[in-house]
């Protein structure tokens, strides 16, 4: 069952990317990698056991994965339009500056 190790490595890479990348699109790619690792483990386990149910469940997994992707992309577009960048550091900096200027006004 080498695929368990393979999907574990994929999961680790995805989580590392999720925690370290500052580009929102890269964060989305990390989420895709985590989802791919989970489905890989799921399908291969079912396939090695000779059960077709695993592949049927994969359709459900893909449906939710696609819905999640749609929501993430919608949020990404909104944030990029609002702040003019998809870099999380810049967005946080803008938010901090905005908070500081609001404090000065009060």
């Amino acid at each position: 069952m080498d695929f368990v190790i393979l999907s574990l490595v994929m999961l680790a890479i995805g989580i590392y990317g999720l925690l370290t990348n500052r580009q929102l699109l890269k964060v989305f790619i990390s989420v895709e990698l985590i989802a791919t690792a989970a489905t890989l483990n799921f399908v291969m386990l079912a396939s090695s056991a000779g059960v077709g149910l695993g592949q049927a469940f994969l359709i459900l997994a893909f449906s939710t994965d696609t819905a999640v992707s749609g929501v993430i992309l919608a949020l990404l577009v909104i944030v990029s339009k609002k702040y003019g960048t998809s870099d999380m550091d810049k967005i946080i900096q803008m938010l901090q500056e905005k908070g500081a200027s609001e404090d000065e006004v009060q």
Partner: protein
Amino acid sequence: MMFEILAVGLIISAVLALFLDEVIYSVAALAGTFFFTAFIYVENGALYAAIFQIAVGVGTLAILFLSGEMLGDKPKMKTSPKRTGALVGIGAVLSLPAIFLSVSGSTGTTSGLDFGDALWNVRGLDVVLQALVILTMALGIAIVLNEKKKKGGQ
């Protein structure tokens, strides 16, 4: 042997997808990840899973290419071939555990349930209901956006 080659390709493309500076190249590497995953499925006899993986992957990649082109910030400098080579090396090293390590365990018993049975006799109703829920959500969002657009136009 085939599984090892596919595993190395999968891990290398995953590392490249995350750590290349240009978003477009990252998306191209992600395409590699999806296709390697599909080949692993084919290699293990999960043909339907491979087809779904490619179908869903192509849709995701199309969206990502578009959004990467529109929303991605321009990188300050291009990725050097040296850095790309280093990333490939890191990917190859990371894939070593998948090649040399293995988790032992029983593979279970064969239930005799094939894909068609599983889909249509066992979980078919769930799939249709979930599709209905997603379609309803999409229609709701479309209606809300349309109303907002109308209000904005007035």
